């Protein structure tokens, strides 16, 4: 093409190069200057224009860039004689893509391909465009043409992948697979296949149509030799045989795999699946398959007769024994776990095999008890045992603890395993407080005793026995549950901080994909916190990461196409979908704008401009409508979470929650999915309801002609009413019943408890109901009251509830588990939205100059309303002043007093502090010869007061932010008060 002749887009390359150099070194001004010169010589060169657009876009001038791009596009279309080269088109493509106008790039390529129908390079560009747009059908058509043109295998595979995408991710019927198969068959007959990846795609096409026999024939034939790694080939063969129902042959294949890779656990499970003729072993993944499936391996045994089962077990056992005998090194866990799995299946089948399983577990302990992964290895096996058998196992293990290994690190590992097993079984929940405390003390002593083992370790390595500290911490949380002595919490924090003093971690580096899997550690708490700046950064970073990925994912998919890794193409598209359905992502998308709305709630003009940027909440209404039918994915990594970590639904720290430590939390996914769906459905109505409430209060008594928005008065009222109905329905009530509930509670006829855990939603409802009453003509019948009544409802609901909370809340330092988060929510949500309604009303009262004089009857309504608003302002102001005063009182307590309070909670007689004392003793006089320089020094730097200070400072920061929010709200209300006084 043109570039081969030393031309770039029809321009000599030597003239273009300096421009690219300038762009690459980010000297955009210089690049622009050079381009202007170039354009003066090549006035109508689309390529020169594309370059200019590219530079403008990089300089942050998207509008100019777009207009230059469109200009270039027009020239391309108009001038028949001009070159249609890929360089120009791909440069335009880059700019269009960055400007979020993929469709324009696509139409350029479509045009070019129409003009030069057999140009491979242009067709590739067009294919790339369709990949970016995820238009699977068009994406299929282009490479088919390319394939017909040059007969290359890769283009055929591009088309085949596009077909698979239509079936798996689009709405293409499975019949399409037949087409793909036909294409491949024909090609193989004439050309054979040359890429192993192509063969794998071929297999998957056949597999999806259940044509396992055909696939096996191909695998056994000449093409099979494309797969160079024997085990890979066997894995495919085993799976195909099993899915075809030829379990005997499949079992043989899996035996072979295990003989080659004795440690392959999955292969063993498949092997058992074959013996027991259980197809559930090969269930295929869907988009919402949990990322961490339950530890319990599903299996089906009921279809087997006693004889068949026994003979299968006999075969499997013999094979496992052979594997054990052949295991070349002691560290292979698979042959021994396989034995456990066989015993587990026997338990499931007969129910009278518990003793054998216990025995096998004990053997496994004697071999691998020192490994850190022991408990996670055996978790699934313990689950089939009844509680008393679990205890029996534990008792037997405990007896073992007298005969620990002579190697100190091994013995330590075994001891830790014992404790972890005890925790896993849930035994600790049943111990009396004294015994529980005793075991925490023992663990701390064990930790101290073994610290010398870490003397020569690199500071970056994990210390021996470190895990003990987190188990101690778990026990201390339970002690808090039982005794309500806050000291245990403080002690738990001290224990963890103590560990950090010795092994200095940097802070956790949660970035990139870890934001999806690890943010759950703090996100739910942050959403209820007044640390808005931090929350805003958290949400922004996370959303940016996700959106960036969605933007670049297609380019990476194209990269996989280009490098002929067809299987990855499908994987990448499915992965993008999984992330798009992430529950956390959807929550963040709703919470981010709501945070903005909270932040600007004191200033109605700012709030309105935010609402405008959110299309007045219309998109969120759409999300709320869709969410019910959307499947959600849960990608959070729960394995790294201690079991007591509070979730959005439950604060486990406030227990007791029987059984939580060994209840696999991933089983709760279904329940969580419902919760999250409900949450998003409800929350995403908020922006629109806020918008409509402001409108509703603004159009009050105004002439309709003055309204700028497209909504006229009756429409606002109708829409708001419909949303109120939906909101009420989500809380389980009809609109009228919901109104009765809020009215009832506000008059003291019903207790606040009827709101259940949805207090905030109910108060929001009351606020929006009041706003709706302002413009509605039928609210009189609905609520049984005219306007001032609904004002009264909201005011008294907010006042009584908040003041009630304040009265019951203790000093924060002594009851950190208290009601601060709910207090923050009350002030920053319903109270803020109510404040906006008030602001909108006051605005309508103020003379704008243009207003005509209102008639007498209107005057009367105005004075009625302005009285109501005045009362509301007064009420909110005094509530907020109380809240601000409470915060200020907390802040004012001298820091040292607070620290004293914390530290002294560990030094009372009888109660928390026993573990703490052990650690203190160690730190106060470290044995330098035993512990080495580094650890001794670290121990000497240990300071409980510093830890106390960290807690206190953190709390103060939260309170100060909260106080600041209250103060700014008070200030804004006072201004309104002055304004309304002039009406």
């Amino acid at each position, binding site marked *: 093409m043109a570039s081969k002749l030393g031309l770039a887009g029809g321009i000599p390359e030597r003239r273009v190069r300096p421009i690219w150099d300038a762009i690459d070194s980010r000297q955009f001004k210089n690049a622009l200057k050079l381009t202007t010169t170039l354009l003066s010589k090549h006035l109508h060169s689309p390529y020169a224009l594309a370059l200019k657009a590219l530079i403008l876009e990089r300089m942050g001038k998207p509008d100019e860039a777009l207009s230059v791009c469109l200009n270039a596009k027009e020239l391309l279309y108009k001038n028949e004689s001009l070159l249609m080269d890929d360089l120009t088109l791909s440069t335009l493509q880059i700019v269009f893509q960055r400007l979020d106008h993929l469709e324009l790039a696509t139409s350029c390529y479509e045009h070019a391909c129409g003009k030069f129908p057999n140009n491979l390079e242009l067709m590739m560009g067009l294919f790339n465009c369709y990949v970016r747009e995820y238009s699977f059908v068009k994406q299929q058509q282009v490479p088919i043409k390319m394939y017909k043109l040059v007969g290359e295998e890769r283009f055929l595979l591009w088309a085949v992948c596009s077909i698979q995408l239509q079936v798996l991710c689009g709405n293409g019927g499975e019949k399409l697979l037949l087409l793909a198969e036909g294409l491949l068959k024909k090609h193989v007959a004439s050309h054979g296949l040359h890429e192993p990846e192509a063969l794998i795609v071929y297999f998957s096409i056949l597999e999806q149509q259940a044509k396992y026999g055909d696939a096996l024939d191909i695998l056994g034939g000449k093409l099979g030799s494309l797969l*160079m*790694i024997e085990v890979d080939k066997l894995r495919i063969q085993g799976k195909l045989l099993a899915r075809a129902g030829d379990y005997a042959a499949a079992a043989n294949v899996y035996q072979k795999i295990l003989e080659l*890779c004795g*440690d*392959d*656990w*999955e292969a063993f499970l498949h092997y058992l699946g074959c013996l027991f003729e259980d197809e559930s072993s090969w269930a295929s993944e869907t988009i919402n398959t949990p*990322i*961490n*499936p*339950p*530890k319990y*391996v599903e299996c089906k045994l009921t279809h087997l007769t006693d004889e068949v089962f026994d003979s299968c077990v006999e075969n499997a056992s013999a094979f496992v024994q052979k594997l054990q005998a052949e295991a070349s090194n002691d*560290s*292979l*866990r*698979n042959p021994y*776990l396989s034995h456990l799995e066989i015993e587990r299946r026997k338990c499931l089948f007969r129910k009278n095999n518990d003793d054998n399983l216990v025995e096998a577990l004990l053997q496994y302990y004697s071999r691998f008890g020192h*490994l*850190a*992964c022991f408990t*996670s*290895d055996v*978790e*699934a096996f313990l689950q089939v045992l009844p509680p008393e058998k679990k205890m029996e196992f534990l008792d037997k293990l405990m007896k073992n603890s007298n005969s620990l290994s002579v190697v100190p690190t091994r013995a330590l590992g075994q001891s830790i395993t014992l404790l972890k097993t005890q925790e896993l079984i849930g035994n600790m929940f049943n111990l009396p407080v004294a015994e529980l405390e005793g075991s925490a003390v023992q663990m701390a002593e064990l930790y101290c005793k073994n610290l010398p083992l870490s003397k020569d370790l*690199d500071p*970056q*390595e*994990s210390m021996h026995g470190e895990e003990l500290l987190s188990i101690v911490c778990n026990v201390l949380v339970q002690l808090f549950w039982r005794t309500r002595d806050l000291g245990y919490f403080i002690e738990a924090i001290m224990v963890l901080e103590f560990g950090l003093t010795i092994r200095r*971690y940097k802070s*956790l*580096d*949660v*970035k*990139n*994909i*870890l934001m999806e*899997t*690890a943010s759950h550690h703090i996100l739910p708490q942050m959403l209820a916190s007044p640390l808005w700046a931090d929350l805003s950064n958290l949400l922004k970073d996370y959303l940016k*990461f996700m959106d*960036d990925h969605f933007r*670049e*994912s297609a380019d*990476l*998919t194209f*990269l*996989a196409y280009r*490098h002929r*890794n067809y*299987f*990855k193409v499908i*994987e*990448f598209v*499915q*992965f993008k979908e*999984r992330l798009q359905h992430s529950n956390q992502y959807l929550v963040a998308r709703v919470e981010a704008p709501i945070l903005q709305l909270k932040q600007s709630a004191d200033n109605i003009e700012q709030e309105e401009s935010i609402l405008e940027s959110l299309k007045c909440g219309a998109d969120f209404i759409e999300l709320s409508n869709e969410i019910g039918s959307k499947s959600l994915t849960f*990608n959070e*990594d729960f*394995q*790294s979470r201690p079991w007591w970590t509070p979730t959005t639904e439950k604060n486990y720290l406030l227990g007791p929650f029987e059984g939580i430590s060994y209840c696999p939390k991933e089983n709760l996914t279904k329940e969580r999915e419902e919760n999250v769906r409900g949450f998003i459905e409800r929350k995403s109505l908020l922006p629109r309801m806020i918008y409509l409430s402001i409108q509703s209060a603004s159009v009050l008594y105004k002439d309709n002609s003055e309204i700028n928005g497209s909504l006229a008065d009756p429409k606002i009222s109708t829409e708001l009413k419909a949303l109120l109905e939906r909101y009420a329905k989500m809380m389980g009530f009809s609109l009228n019943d919901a109104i009765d509930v809020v009215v009832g509670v506000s008059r003291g006829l019903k207790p606040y408890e009827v709101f259940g855990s949805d207090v905030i939603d109910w108060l929001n409802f009351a606020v929006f109901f009041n706003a709706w009453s302002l413009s509605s003509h039928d609210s009189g019948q609905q609520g049984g009251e005219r306007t001032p009544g609904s004002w009264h409802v909201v005011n008294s609901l907010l006042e009584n509830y908040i003041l009630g909370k304040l009265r019951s809340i203790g000093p924060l330092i002594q009851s950190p588990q208290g009601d601060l988060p709910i207090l923050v929510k009350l002030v920053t949500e319903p109270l803020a939205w109510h404040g906006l309604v008030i602001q909108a009303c006051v605005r309508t009262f103020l003379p704008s100059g243009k207003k005509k004089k209102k008639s007498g009857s209107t005057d009367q309504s105005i004075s009625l309303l302005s009285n109501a608003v005045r009362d509301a302002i007064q009420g909110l102001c005094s509530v907020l002043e109380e809240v601000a005063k409470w915060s200020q009182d907390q802040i004012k307590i001298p820091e040292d007093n607070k620290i004293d309070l914390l530290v002294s909670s560990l030094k009372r007689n009888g109660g928390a502090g026993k573990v703490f004392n052990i650690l203190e003793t160690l730190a106060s006089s470290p044995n330098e010869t035993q512990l080495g320089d580094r650890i001794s020094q670290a121990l000497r730097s240990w300071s409980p007061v510093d830890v106390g200070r960290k807690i206190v400072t953190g709390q103060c920061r939260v309170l100060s932010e909260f106080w600041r929010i209250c103060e700014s709200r008070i200030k804004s209300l006072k201004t309104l008060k002055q304004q309304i006084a002039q009406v």
Partner: protein
Amino acid sequence: MTTIRRFCCNDLLRFASVNLDHLTETFNMSFYMTYLARWPDYFHVAEGPGNRIMGYIMGKVEGQGESWHGHVTAVTVAPEYRRQQLAKKLMNLLEDISDKIGKAYFVDLFVRASNTPAIKMYEKLGYVIYRRVLRYYSGEEDGLDMRKALSRDVEKKSIIPLKRPVTPDELEYD
């Protein structure tokens, strides 16, 4: 107890327990996905029961002529599964693939000059220090370029140590 298989996108959602360790870098998405799109054979994960990620290795094959080689970009094992020779298994796998499928002459890797435990481990696996790369890590710490010859390099020419250290801009590949 270890299934070693090709790394797939969903594993990115499972590897938190490995990557929260402060010595393991979490790269951006296009980095991982470029490796998956270009060198899927060189990116493997070891998985225990319940789909627990035990560790993974990430690498590529590149170069020209006799410097065509496999490269280890990252190898890491979760704390729970350390001291079970898993890293060795993963390294052997990548060497095997570089040798048999990639037909490479050698495998190389970079390691912080201060990371003595890692250097010792690589030496045990047959790697030698080929050269020192000055200020390779963020312009601060030196890196060591370690190599192991594969069967195609019959005379083991690729691993004869260089006498002088090099600077990062002298490196042929990044």
